Every structure is written in C-alpha cells, then in structure tokens.
C-alpha cells in the first residue's frame, strides 16, 4: 500500500517538469536529491555482500569480496574484506568524518582520507555509504538529455561549504521515469573530470523498519577518467536489512573478526 502511494507521489512529482519540458526549479531539484537519498537510506541497519573488481592496464586484476555494513541512523559504515585470503579480515570503519582502516596482518589501524581508494580500486567510501546528496551538495540544472533509450535530467552538484567530499563537483543523469541515478561524473576542484560511473540497475527491497522499500544499485561501473584504461566494477550480490548487533560499528568488533 505504502509502496503504491510512493510510486503515485513520484509519478506526480516527475510528471509536471517532464510534460512541460522545463528545467526543474531549485526547490524541485533539492527535493529530487532528498528523494534519492531517502530511497537508499534505511531507518534500520543495512548489510550487503559486495564484489569489487579493478582492472588496470598491464597490471594484475584485483578482486575482492566484501561485506558492507551501514547504520544510517548513526552515520556509520564498515567494509569488511572476506576474500581473497590475503585481504581477509581487513576493514574500513567510518565514525563521524573519520575513515579508519584496519589491517589484521599488522594488527594496526590507520586513519585515511575521503579520497581513499577502497582496496586500491577506483571506488570511494561514498560509493558504499548512505547517499547524502541533498545534505552535502547544491544542485543546478544543466538540461534534459537521453542516456541510451532513457530520457534523463542532467544536474550539476557543487559541494556545500565545509563539506569534505571526495569530489567537490558531481554531474548526475537521473532517469525521468523512476528518479534513479543512471550516470554520475565526478570532478576535481580544478574542474578536471576524474571518474564516470554508471548505475544500470536499481533494486528495491522492502524494509520492515522503514516501511517503504530501500533502493540500492545492483551494479556500479566506474571508469577512471585520468588513467583511461582503468575501471572498477562493483556488484551488490545480496542485501539484508535485518538489525545488526548493537556494538558492531567499533574498532574492537572489526579486530575481533580476524582474531
């Protein structure tokens, strides 16, 4: 029931601007971003089995199997590496604005920045974390466009003052029909294009805690725009929204997994 109501509300939301073929107003764009954020947020916990593969020219392929843990209500994130053996037990933990990495091989933690390449791939912390587009960025309308066969809104987002985003400027191509992001381009402060990411499929699952579905991209395909031969593929294989243990998002928990 709630699901249908949301769908109806979304249809009404998108119908006006599309029908008139006019850009979205600033307020509508912010609402759109809030909607994108809200869809991906779960009021309870979130756990995903993610596969990450990196390909680079003249280098060995890098493949990881990881579990992503999120507690959106507390802004917490954890990425635990399961495979390959050499990486098993490694993990990232985000607490507040800090990202920590743990290496069981040396039993030590290290603080990393927003620009950390997760496992050395082209993915960043924000690719796995809850979506905070409306909170962290101001949108501007670039125009309407088509991506493959999909009509899209093309938006340009600029990071708000004081926000330490991995990329201060993002351009988004948002599916008019469903409101999902299909393509994103990340820019450095200098204006240089750094990454292009595609989100070909979005999945919805019911959340008992939230009452409405939670969205997540089934695949993220990231193309490095600096080292043109490099690309990263993220596949969210399974997602589980059941509550996680209360004390999970701690250094002690992550350490205990490999001890």
């Amino acid at each position, binding site marked *: 029931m709630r699901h249908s109501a949301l769908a109806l509300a979304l249809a009404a939301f998108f119908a006006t601007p599309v029908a008139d073929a006019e850009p979205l107003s600033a307020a509508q764009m912010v609402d759109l971003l809030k909607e994108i954020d809200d869809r991906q947020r779960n009021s309870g916990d979130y756990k995903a*089995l993610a596969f990450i*593969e*990196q*390909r*680079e020219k003249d280098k060995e*392929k*890098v*493949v990881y*199997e990881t*579990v992503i843990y999120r507690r959106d209500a507390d802004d917490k994130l954890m990425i635990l590496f*399961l*495979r390959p*053996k*050499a990486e*098993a037990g490694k993990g990232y*933990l985000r*607490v*507040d604005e800090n990202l*920590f*990495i743990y*290496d*069981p*091989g*040396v*039993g*030590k*933690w*290290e*603080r990393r920045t927003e620009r950390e*390449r997760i496992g*050395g791939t082209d993915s960043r912390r924000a690719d796995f974390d809850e979506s905070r587009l409306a909170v962290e960025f101001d949108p501007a309308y670039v125009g309407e466009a088509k*991506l*493959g*066969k999909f009509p899209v809104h093309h938006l340009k987002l600029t990071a708000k003052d*004081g926000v330490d985003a991995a990329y201060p400027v993002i351009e988004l191509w948002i599916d008019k029909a*469903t409101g*999902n992001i299909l393509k994103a381009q990340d820019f450095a402060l200098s204006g240089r294009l750094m990454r*292009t990411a*595609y989100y*070909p*499929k*979005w*999945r*919805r699952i*019911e*959340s008992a805690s939230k009452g409405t579905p939670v969205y997540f991209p089934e695949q993220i*395909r990231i193309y490095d725009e600096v080292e*043109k031969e490099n690309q990263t*593929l993220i*596949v969210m*294989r*399974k*997602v*589980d929204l*059941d509550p996680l243990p209360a004390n999970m998002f*701690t*250094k*002690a928990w992550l350490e205990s*997994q490999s*001890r």
Partner: protein
Amino acid sequence: MSGFARLQLLVYMALRSLWAHKVKSLIVGSLIGFGTMLFVLGTALLDSIEGAIERSVVHSLSGHLQVYSADGKDELAIFGDMTMGGADWGRIDDFAVIDEVISKVDNVEAVVPMGINTAYMTRGSDLERTLGRMREMVRAGQVADARALVPKVKRLVGLLDADLRNQLVIAGEDSAAELKEKLARAERAASDALWATFDSEPLSVLEFLDTRVAPLAGEGRVMFIRYVGTDLGRFAEHFDRLKVVRGEMVPDGRRGILINQKYADRVLKIAAARLLDDLAEAREASIPIEGTAELAAKARRLKTQGGAIELMLDPDDAEALALKLATLLGVETERNGEALDLGVLLELFLTVDDDNAIARHAFFYEQVAPLVDVYPFSVGDVVTIRAWTRNNALKAVNVRVWGTFVFEGLERSELTGAANLLDLMTFRELYGQMTATDRAELEAIRDEVGVEFVGRDNAEDALFGGGDSVEIDIGADDDFDAVAEADLKREKRTMAVSEEFDAEMNRKGLVLNAAIMLEDGDRIAESKAAIAAAAEAAGLKLKVVDWQEASGVLGQLALVVRVILYIAIFIIFAVALVIINNSMLMATMERVREIGTLRAIGAQRGFVMAMFLLETLVLGLIAGGLGALAGAGIVIWLGNVGIPAQNEIMVFIFSGNRLFPTVGAEHLGLGVIIILIVSLVSTWYPARMATRVEPIEAMRGAD
C-alpha cells in the same frame, strides 16, 4: 754537416733567439706554462673526482653494472628520481635464473638482487599513540598497566581542550557550533564519569577516545621511506662501504630492516632535535646564526617546537623538566602566584642564538631527550611500514628494525643517506607479488559473480540501450552470513612470502634489478658487453647499464665537469695559439734580414723552417715542463691537505668529507705533449712565411 751538428746549431740558434727576444719569450712562455699547469691540474682533479664518484656509487648501491628488465618503461635510477617510487623498471620474475647466467660470465664477482621502492611509516599523534599502547595492554589483559597511562591521556586531553577553546575564541559563527560539539567530546574524555567505567569496560572507553577524540588532536606524521630490498647477507658481503653502527645486521633467513643513520637523523628525528643539531653544528664551525638567513629561519622554527615536546612528556616528567628549565634559564617557577607554564619555559629554552646554541644543544640531549621519543622507534622495535603495491592496493607489513648503518665515508651524504635496506621477502610482499594460487583464487571469485566488464566506448548503449526499466523489485531481502562462511579467523596472511626463509627462497623469486660487482673494475665496458651477450644467448630480456647510467644525473656529473674543463682548456689553448702565431709572425717580419742572410749563405728552406719550429718547441718544452711541474705541485699539495666538501652533494662527489687528489705521469706527459702540438701548429704558418724569404730581400733590407 752531420745531422747532429745541424741539430746542435739549430738548438743554439733557437736559444739565442729566445734570449734575444726575452719579453716575447716570457709572454708566450707564460701562456704556455699557464695552459699546461691548468691542463695537468684539471685532468688530475677530474680523474680523482671521477674515481671518487665511482667509489661513492659503485660501493654504496649500484655495483659496477646493473641489470633490469628490458620491459621497463623508465630508466633505472638507483639514487631516486622524481616519481616517488612510481617508476616502471619492469620486473625480473626469477632472480635465480639471471644469477645463474650472469655469475658465469668472466670477471663477474657477484650478482646482488634488488628491489627499490618507497613506502611510508606513520607516527600518530601523541594521543593516538598513547591510546594505541593502552589498547594493546588491555588486549593482553594488563588493564592495570593501561590505567597507569590514564594521567598522560588526561593531560593530552587537557591540552586538546585548551587548544579547542582557543580556536573557539577566534572562530566565526559558522564553525562555532562544530567546535562546541568537539569541545563537548573533549570534556567528556576528561570527565570522571567516563574514567569511572574504565576498569569495567576499558575497550569501550578506548573506543570512544580512539574514534571520536583522538582524531581531533591532529594528523600525526607521515614519513616516506625509500628502501632497497635485497639479499642483505650478499649485499653486506659485496658492498664494503656498509657498516652497521647501532644494533646488528639482519640475520640470514630473517625479515628485517636496517635504517640508514643519515635518514634517521634527517627525517625520523623530531624537528626540535634536528634544528638544534643544525644550529649547534653551525656554531661549532663559527658560522653566525643571525647573519645566515637559512640558520635564522631554523632558529625561528625551533622556537615553535615547544608544543610538540610538551605533548610527549609524562605529567611527572613535565613538572621535573619545568624546574630544570627554570633553573637553567634563571627564571622564577612562579609568576604572579601561578606556576610558570611549561610551554612558556620551553619556548624560552628553544630561543637559540649565537651564544647559547651549543649549550642548549647539550642540555637538550642530556635532560630533554631521555624524556621524549627523539626517534619514532628504537633499534629492536617492530615497525609498520606501508606501501602501495604494484596494483595500487595499500599493503602494510610489520618488520623489525635490527639496526642502523652508514656507508663509510659517505655519512654526510643525503643521496646515499636516503637509502634504507630491507629484506627481499618483505620487499616482495610490499610489491604485491602474486603466486599462481593467488591468481586462481581471484579467478574463482570472479567466476562466482559472473559479471562481465563493458568497454567504456560502448558503455551507454550496452547498459541503457535495452529500454527496460532500470528498477527491479526483489521484494524480500537476502539473509546471509558471509562472515561466518569466510571464517576470517582461520585465514592467515598470504603464503606468497614466508616469515622465515632459506637462501634458496631468497634467490628464487621476484626482483626489480640486480647489481653486478666485477673482479676487475677497469673492465666495465668489456664485461657489460659480455653480460648482455650471455643474457641474450639465454633468452633473457635484460638491459645492462654501467654505474654511471644507473645512477642517472649523478653518474653524468663527472662527464659534465669534464666537458666544462675541456672547453675552458680549449679556449685557453686557442688564445695561446693565436698569440704564439702572431708573435712568431711578427718575429718573422723582424728577422727578414737574418733569414735572407742565412738563405744567402746557403741555408735551405727546410733549415729555416726547422729553425722556427725548433725555437717554439724549445720554448714549449721549457715553459710547458715548468707549467706541468707547477700543476703537479699544486695537486700534490692538495693531495696532502685535502679539498674539503662544502655540502652534502660534494661529500658524495668527493666520496668523503675531503677529496685527496692524485697526479700521475700520464697527466704530466699528456699536458706537455698537447702544449707542444699547440705550439708547433701555431708556428707552422709563420715558419712557412719565413721559408719564402729570398736572399735578395735581405740585401734590399741592407740598402
């Protein structure tokens, strides 16, 4: 007239003529002498410098020759380049294979495997490090020991609190709310309520401090470390300049790192110690601080280092040090009824000038250094070093510091001082070496997922060309417990490298390059060709370079200096040539009567020619000989007193703190021969003119 008598006559005439034209002879002779002296001095110095650079390069890191993969995109630079370890020198997958081939080549003494790269170490903030120690103690069940560090944590939190309050005073409205929130965290960290729970829940207290408070206290330090991964035993055997100064050599078959003493003193040491070292050293050499811009800047920087020292002190030590500093500085420990702040005392102590620099340096090492960590680690400690693997993944390893070392004679050189020595196994781990098993494991994970890559050019059509909705409704979620399935506890670190190893494991495996030591270092070119031929015959794709090529710009230094000197000598000799030529031409004009008379009494043209040439030859021999002897004298004198190296680059070029040049017979011989050739060439044309003088012209002159 016999040949000898003729020669005697010619020599006599030459000497007579030289004496008759004393001024001209003196000018031309001085020029010849000066040129020869410069040539002898220059070539002798250059040869000595070249030899010294060779000793610096060959016996510290490069060996006589280096080999690396022909697939490498960049040229080998043993002493570093601008890429911070990112250079692509290719890789040699199995050192044993090239060792086998190259060792058999004539004149090869040894092949030493190498892998040069850059890693980094971090030194967290003092709060982070103290909390880290407490966590380790708690994990080991030593809660009481951890509790002993609580006063230190409270003190550090107090300093953080004060710092945040200062920030709040000057903060604008935008950042005030954020600062207040941080301040609340710091207040909670100092509160008794929090510490009351430490005994019952130490880890949760530390968790809060670790993740929510420690990050407020700054970033700590990142120290980049350039290392040469090598078979340490083999390296020590063949690079005879290596000398362990503290600790011991890494034992065979064990992992470990040897830290370069120069790197430890210039990079690892805390800034206050480094700056005091520099200022005291300058004062010992009587260099004024105030009058030297660089030293004055260092003195200003030193004044700001009190805070860093204060953070490292335990509460009791801080109090004791405050008293000692007050006594030293002759100030009251109390001012206006309040105890004088240690920060103020430290700033006064670190205010160094020409008069107190040496004394403050001594006091620092006697009283302050024992209370703080001057170096981030000690010999015997296990340190964590991190590096990006070839695939850009961050790799961390724990490795024991067995000792520190110097390259003898090059202790002051920062070029050789930047290289640290690491065992080969750890290098391979940091490089991200993969085995066939590792690759198979990755392939199995990929197969499980079964998603293919899409090329960037057709990505949009391939991904969005179908037109179906991008949304998939999967209803319920997946219940999974991948962590339990993976069983992380049993999974240990990769077996691609071993904790302990034998010589054969060290020999078999990945390296990036290898140094080749020759039995006879004078046969470099010949051995280089022989090794290249042997490698090619064995089907190995290797580049073979000599030490000059392998050391990049440094190796070319001697060549550059030589070119500059040769240009200078060429100019001097060219000037000499013109002057001699002109003087002889004028002499010819003046001596037309004499020549005509000689011709009239039967002297042939050849005799006249020989007369002129011999005159210059005699002058060249006398002046050139004297010049060569003067040059040799100067070199011998310099060889006794030594030429001091003014800076660390000169230390490398001189292969020590002083260069003691030597001169050989070849320098003198070559100098004299070249000046004689120049003299003869410059006299050739005037002599030819003289031969054309007819006897009749002498008669006319008489009229």
